């Protein structure tokens, strides 16, 4: 293995992730301080935590409390490798999910004199760059600082080594998963024929929802404590699972069982090597795999007027809306947009049902119903609005070269955002009504409110989406400049609060939100009416701004 090649490949991976786009993609800029800030910050934070815990530990003189702390440390230390393994696996897989939208894969390794071992090792190590590596540094530095108070430096060194090995193990597993899923997905598409698009759409949604539900379940307060307890308690009972051997190595070391420590250490090492070579073999076998072409239609071509034409959209506007619908159901990087609203419904529902270790709610929460009706549609409008122009990517030249006016552009993009978000609200509303059976007046008021929010926030986000459009596609589609996205989120939050404030006032006056001083009651219909007026003013104003921005956008076309 040529280690220089490995280092060079990792450096390419790092750069591909750090590519910062200037106004025109001419020069590559990088900030070395910023590059290492995350790791430096993790190290400083880890040392501070370690020192604080160590000082606290030293300050304890009560023998009973000291014994409890020792026991706590003894249970946490052996569970750290497994925790790092889980978190690294989640983060590296998240990285892979994000890279699913990468347009140009890094192919030179396939024709340059680089072996599959070098390629696989570099890819595996590169997965760890970012949050996984920062987590290891955080835990490692905390342990190193704390162990000086315990007088257990060898244990600290051993733990840090185990953490590094765990992260590598996780990353190797992700690499295997990555290669297998490319092969598997290709085979599924091939056999699904015309249904491939729906298989891909629903499959991706289900996978991502399951992934995020597990992730939130693990990282929510109660879920995380439960996880540590489970790992600490059950590790030895399921010793035959190779992924736990690193944790068991530490547990054996802390118990002074030398033979067991050596056996688990060697077994862990062997397991990592086996996994790594499995990843190498899979890369060599399927690394160059090209997914088959997805055939969507066969037979006689029959153009149609379509529903949108009947609604008063010109052929040009209807064509753009239809194209966008296809984009959001076929482009994997755009399918993410469906995940958030779904997760936002599932998470509170699961919390309500006590699935994350918390108590089961005795009665349906008004807040939860409000959230399910208002949240997903509004979030959808904000997300769609900001990315609806930037998602065009390099293909934006179609707009610049075709006879599309600013009015048509804004009309069709705005219509698409509103239609999609209203569908989400409708679906969420049905789920919310079925699960929580709210009163009719509240349901109607919240549905109207949701639509008012969608209308206003779509216009606001479209303005920001045009202003902050980013057509960069490599290494992955950016769609909107992060700063503009942040500004839009804050602005939308403020404006949504303003639109919703009459209903909030109603909730206060009828006692849904308790106040020490009772206020005179206002009618729900009046609150909704005031809210509608506010929403319409905001919608009108921002739609006008969007038209102006679109005019400038089409004139300043520079591609």
């Amino acid at each position, binding site marked *: 293995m040529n280690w220089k090649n490995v280092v060079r490949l990792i450096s390419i991976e790092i750069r591909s992730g750090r590519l910062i786009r200037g106004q025109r993609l001419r020069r590559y800029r990088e900030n070395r301080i910023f590059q290492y800030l995350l790791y430096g910050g993790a190290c400083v934070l880890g040392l501070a935590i370690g020192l604080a815990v160590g000082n606290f530990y030293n300050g304890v003189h009560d023998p009973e409390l000291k014994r409890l702390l020792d026991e706590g440390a003894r249970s946490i230390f052996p569970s750290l490798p497994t925790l790092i393994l889980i978190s690294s696996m989640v983060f590296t897989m998240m990285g892979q999910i994000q890279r699913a939208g990468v347009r140009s894969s890094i192919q030179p390794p396939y024709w340059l004199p680089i072996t599959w071992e070098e390629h696989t090792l570099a890819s595996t190590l590169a997965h760890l760059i970012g949050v996984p590596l920062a987590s290891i540094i955080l835990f490692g530095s905390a342990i190193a600082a704390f162990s000086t108070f315990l007088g257990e430096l060898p244990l600290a060194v051993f733990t840090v080594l185990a953490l590094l090995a765990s992260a590598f193990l996780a990353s190797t597993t992700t690499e295997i998963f990555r290669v297998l899923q490319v092969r598997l997905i290709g085979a599924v598409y091939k056999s699904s024929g015309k249904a491939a698009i729906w298989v891909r759409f629903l499959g991706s949604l289900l996978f991502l929802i399951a992934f995020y539900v597990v992730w939130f379940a693990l990282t929510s307060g109660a879920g995380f404590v439960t996880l540590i307890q489970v790992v600490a308690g059950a590790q030895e009972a399921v010793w035959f699972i190779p992924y736990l051997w690193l944790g068991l190595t530490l547990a054996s070391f802390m118990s002074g069982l030398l033979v067991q420590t050596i056996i688990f250490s060697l077994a862990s090492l062997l397991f990592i090597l086996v996994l790594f070579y499995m990843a190498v073999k899979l890369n060599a076998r399927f690394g160059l795999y090209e997914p088959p072409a997805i055939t969507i239609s066969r037979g006689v071509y029959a153009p149609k007027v379509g529903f949108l034409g009947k609604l008063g959209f010109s052929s040009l506007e209807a*064509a753009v809306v239809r194209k966008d619908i296809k984009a959001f159901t076929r482009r994997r990087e755009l399918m993410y947009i469906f995940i958030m609203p779904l997760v936002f419904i599932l998470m509170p529902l699961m919390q309500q049902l006590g699935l994350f270790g918390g108590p089961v709610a005795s009665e349906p929460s008004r807040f939860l119903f409000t959230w399910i009706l208002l949240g997903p549609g509004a979030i959808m409008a904000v997300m769609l609005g900001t990315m609806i122009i930037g998602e065009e990517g390099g293909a934006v030249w179609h707009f610049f070269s075709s*006879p599309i006016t600013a009015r048509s552009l804004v009309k069709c993009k705005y219509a698409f955002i509103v239609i999609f978000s209203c569908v989400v609200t409708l679906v969420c509303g049905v789920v919310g009504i079925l699960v929580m059976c709210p009163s009719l007046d509240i349901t109607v008021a919240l549905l109207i409110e949701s639509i008012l929010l969608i209308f206003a926030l779509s216009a606001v986000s479209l303005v920001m989406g045009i202003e902050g459009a980013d057509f960069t596609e490599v290494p992955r589609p950016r769609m909107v400049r992060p700063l503009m996205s942040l500004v839009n989120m804050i602005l939308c939050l403020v404006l949504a609060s303003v639109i919703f404030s009459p209903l909030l006032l109603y909730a206060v006056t009828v006692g849904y939100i308790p106040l020490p001083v009772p206020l005179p009651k206002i009618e729900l219909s009046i609150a909704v009416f005031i809210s509608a007026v506010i929403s319409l003013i905001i919608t009108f104003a921002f739609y006008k701004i969007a038209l102006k921005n679109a005019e400038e956008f089409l004139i300043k076309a520079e*591609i």
Partner: protein
Amino acid sequence: MLSTSEYAVELRRVAKRYADIVAVDYIDLNVKYGEIFGLLGPNASGKSTTLKIILGLVKPDSGSIKVLGINAQEDPVAVKRQVGYVPETPRLYEFLTGLEYLDFVGDIYAVEMSEKKMRIEEHLSALDLEGREGDMINSYSQGMKQKIALISAFLHKPKLLILDEPLSGLDPKSARIVKDLLRKLTTQGVTTIMSTHILEIAQAMCDRIAIMYEGKLLALGNMEELRQKARLPGSDLEEIFLKLTGTEDIRDLVEALLK
């Protein structure tokens, strides 16, 4: 804003800079109706920028542009309605099938439904894309994508075609079809401006040729006029091009590379 003009495209003192790089340096250019006009030049000579300026994809820093008698800066949408464009590296909507893409372009230019169907089917058949039109474009080869881009430019029967390297990646049969099609279109009054690096194609196809270098127009005319300008009677376009762009003495360079 229509005006009577003998030229399909008129550029007057058009300039464009990108920071410290001069892409187009105050050029004047007239393209006649119904001619095939070739725009040649080494890499980064300003050809693509000039084509983009004509179409309104790039706003010039100065100068005026008239396309088909319309002031392109005053009414760009009216110009775009009558122009078919193929960029150097066409980025198509890869999540659409070839058929869906052409349907989309047809709708963008408001092509009547029965005509759209007929023209799409004819072009797909002529360029050997039948059988693959229902596949997503992301599975197409570069040549197939180029064919789709060309069809999309012809679909709405434009009066002016702006083609940046139109034959790039095409197989010999398709290239021949496109060349013959462009020739036939000139008889119907369609003007074509094309940029290419394949000088044999330019020599064979173009009525007039402009050679650009470092943003300037070095020479303009038919083959005979170019020969006179280069003082190379009887020579082909490659020799003229190399002489005018000052790159004719390449023997030393090759010798140096072989050392």
